[in-house]
């Protein structure tokens, strides 16, 4: 075998007294896509940061082209062609897309920046990624998926020999992911070595050549992908077989009352005339392609975005929601898709984060810290948050564990209605199964769920009905056997259902294709 492009030998890593990687070996060959998989907190991101020079291993060695890697400073690895796409966004929010893409290695003409060249190259790279973002837009104004694409574009603008991608597709929709896979294949064919992490095992199967499995910081196995099935990978990761990812659906009773009704919702710039009914015990999926406006619809409902028209009723009573507090008071909880920017205070500990949303439930005047601590312990068990000590800042949790904490935080208000936006983003397959069970149980016990997700299997596997949106307009509501991929895609792409140009948009009463008209 040829000299590997990048190799780690017996790498261990400790944070303070805690060792999180125990003697891991790992190699990447030229023109190979090598998957790194494992449960949340297994140490994937940590290993990737070591491979790309962001962390220095506590012991062990990393070699690039057979030469020891210099950890003399960030940028040293990049100079030798090893580039990391971070799991957590690594973008300066106040700067523009172009400024971020070239941050730290700006192009110059003489002493001055060559803005034109950078702008053009950014545009070209973004176009190659099929990403319609303006290079002059500020990153703080972008949606998470767009930020991820910028992150990828930033990596692409480098001289890449080894590209390390930490869950790049976690926040991407199918279309965007497909674009990325095309890119990965092209790079591989050019001889670039690629390290790839994802909790979407179908992706791993489809685009990687070898798989390395980590469990609790230990190297478990490295095998050619072809030798493994998805179940096989899952079993190596979790240590047990994953069967029945989705629990059997228990649809709400036909006469289940409508607990939330939305009509004619307008969110300027994003959503027009959207409406839906949510029934007790129901999981209502929201599907759509990028830019369909599902997030904006949810945030418009909840008072997190400016809403210019529309009404809500809760259990038949009109409900006024001007700010999120009103929604929470009405028993509605919301899980944001932007865990880092809007979900968690990364510099603070687990406990204050967990209770931030529901602090009024922890004492009338003073916050009862003992009850908080107890709640944290419960949450850690219930949501399987893997953390070695409870005193660390949330920012040092692995991505998946942050997501679990965020879900736990959302549930602190004991909602009747749960609106979850990309709930399993960055969650490993074993935990996904737990979260699916959790949502299922929540609905079965009389709760109602609005599930916004870009993962088609998730939508199909959990939802009783599916609302499909396209360009800010509800194009259809699918029920029963209609809830299947082909049909959803047809509505989402405009092949079927209301045409988006229809001025009023969909409302359950007004539409011919009325799937809500249950008796």
């Amino acid at each position, binding site marked *: 075998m040829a000299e590997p492009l990048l190799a780690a030998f017996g790498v261990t890593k400790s944070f303070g007294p805690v060792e999180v990687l125990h003697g891991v070996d790992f190699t990447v060959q030229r023109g190979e896509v090598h998957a790194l998989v494992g449960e949340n907190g297994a140490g994937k991101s940590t290993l990737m940061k070591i491979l790309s020079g962001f962390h220095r291993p506590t012991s062990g060695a990393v070699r690039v082209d057979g030469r020891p890697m210099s950890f003399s400073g960030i940028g040293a690895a990049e100079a030798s062609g090893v580039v990391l796409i971070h799991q957590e966004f690594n973008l300066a929010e106040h700067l523009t897309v172009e400024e971020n893409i070239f941050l730290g290695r700006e192009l110059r003409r003489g002493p001055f920046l060559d803005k034109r060249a950078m702008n053009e190259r950014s545009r070209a790279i973004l176009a190659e990624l099929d990403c319609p973002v303006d290079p002059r837009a500020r990153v703080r104004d972008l949606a998470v998926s767009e930020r991820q694409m910028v992150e990828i574009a930033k990596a692409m603008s480098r001289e890449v020999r080894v590209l390390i991608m930490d869950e790049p597709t976690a926040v991407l929709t199918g279309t965007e992911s497909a674009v990325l896979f095309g890119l990965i294949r092209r790079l591989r064919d050019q001889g670039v070595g690629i390290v790839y992490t994802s909790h979407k095992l179908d992706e791993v199967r489809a685009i990687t050549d070898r798989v390395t499995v980590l469990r609790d910081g230990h190297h478990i196995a490295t095998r050619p992908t072809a030798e493994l099935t998805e179940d096989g990978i899952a079993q190596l990761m979790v240590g047990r077989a994953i069967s029945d990812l989705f629990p059997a659906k228990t649809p709400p009773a036909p006469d289940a009352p409508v607990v939330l009704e939305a009509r004619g919702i307008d969110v300027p710039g994003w959503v027009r005339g959207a409406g839906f009914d949510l029934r007790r015990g129901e999981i209502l999926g929201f599907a759509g392609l990028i830019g369909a406006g599902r997030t904006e619809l949810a945030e418009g409902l909840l008072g997190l975005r400016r809403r210019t028209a529309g009404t809500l009723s809760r259990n038949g009573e009109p409900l006024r929601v001007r700010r999120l507090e009103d929604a929470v008071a009405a028993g509605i909880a919301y899980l944001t898709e932007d865990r880092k920017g809007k*979900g968690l205070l990364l510099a*603070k500990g687990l406990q204050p984060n967990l209770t*931030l949303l529901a602090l*009024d439930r922890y004492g009338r005047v*003073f916050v009862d810290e003992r009850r908080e601590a107890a709640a944290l312990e419960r949450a850690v068990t219930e949501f399987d948050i893997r953390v070695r000590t409870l005193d660390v800042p949330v920012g040092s949790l692995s991505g998946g564990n942050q997501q679990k904490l965020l879900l736990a935080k959302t549930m602190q208000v004991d909602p009747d209605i749960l609106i979850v936006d990309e709930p399993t983003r960055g969650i490993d397959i074993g935990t996904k199964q737990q979260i699916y069970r959790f949502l299922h149980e929540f609905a079965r016990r009389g709760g109602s769920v609005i599930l916004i997700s870009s993962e088609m299997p998730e939508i199909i596997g959990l939802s009783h009905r599916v609302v499909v949106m396209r360009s800010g307009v509800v194009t259809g509501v699918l029920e029963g056997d209609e809830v299947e991929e082909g049909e959803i895609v047809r509505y989402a792409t405009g092949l079927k259902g209301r045409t988006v140009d229809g001025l009023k948009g969909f409302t359950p009463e007004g539409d011919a294709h009325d799937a809500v008209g249950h008796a």
Partner: protein
Amino acid sequence: MTPSVMPEAARKPSSGFDLKLYGPFLALAALIVLGTIVNPVFLSPGNIGNVLTRTAFIGIIAVGATFVITAGGIDLSVGSLAAFASGVMIVVMNALVGSMGAGLPVILVGVLVALGLGLAAGLVNGLLVTKGRMEAFIVTLGTMGIFRSLVTYIADGGTLSLNSEIRTIYRPVYYGGVFGISYPILAFAAVALVGALIMYRTRFGRHCAAIGSSEDVARYSAINVDRVKLLAFVLQGICVAIAVVIYVPRLGSASATTGLLWELEAIAAVIIGGTMLKGGYGRIWGTVVGAVMLTLIDNILNLTGAISVYLNGTIQGVIIIVAVLLQRGTVARR
């Protein structure tokens, strides 16, 4: 200072962080040692009493400032608000002597007036920041100029002096005390204690820190960001009013120079105490220590004749920097 009032203490395990936590206290200890070396009188109860009593104004204001800064704001108007509130309080009390006679009721009205003004000023600052969506720095720079010029105006450029009869009745509020502890010290302790309770034990305190860390996360956690920020400014205003209530009996006067640069001192106390200027992390006990340190530095300089008076500022600056360097430089945080 029990751990229950200072929850971070019990929870943070790493030694580097501990130093950051106890840094202000160590720096204070170093300063006390320095003072004792310079002049043994330093440790006399009289001197300590003087120093703490003097600290009370800035200390109380700084407790309020801790909330504003923790919530990501800043208030430059506190010094001039102190002057303005003192001035109005004196004018009102003087005016009431005629009708109500010199007595406790007049003083009570005066106190209420001061508190009312503090509250109103806090509201104005807070509303301009939240509803006006302006930077707190600019808003309070503006109100700083406004309050100061208003007190100059009502004092006709001169000094407003409290009616001497009222003065006699009111005087003990500064100069008196119980068990040898002056009322200003007691007031300072009470404000700090209440401040610590609010900061560490109530929702409001948590919400301030959350907003200072990330307004977006706070908003998505169903926190009424505007209301919390407004409240922080109001709290600051009330703290200033309390400081005024114990300041006025000291010299019984107010003028355009009253409270000059107090804002800088208050903010310095907060930051020396370990609160971050960017917000998100507030420490009341640190603020208390920071305020005491600032007064101590002055005191030590006055107790020694060894240094040219011209160089006072140099020594002061060096001590501040060294004290903070001692407590932070050692912290190997990356």
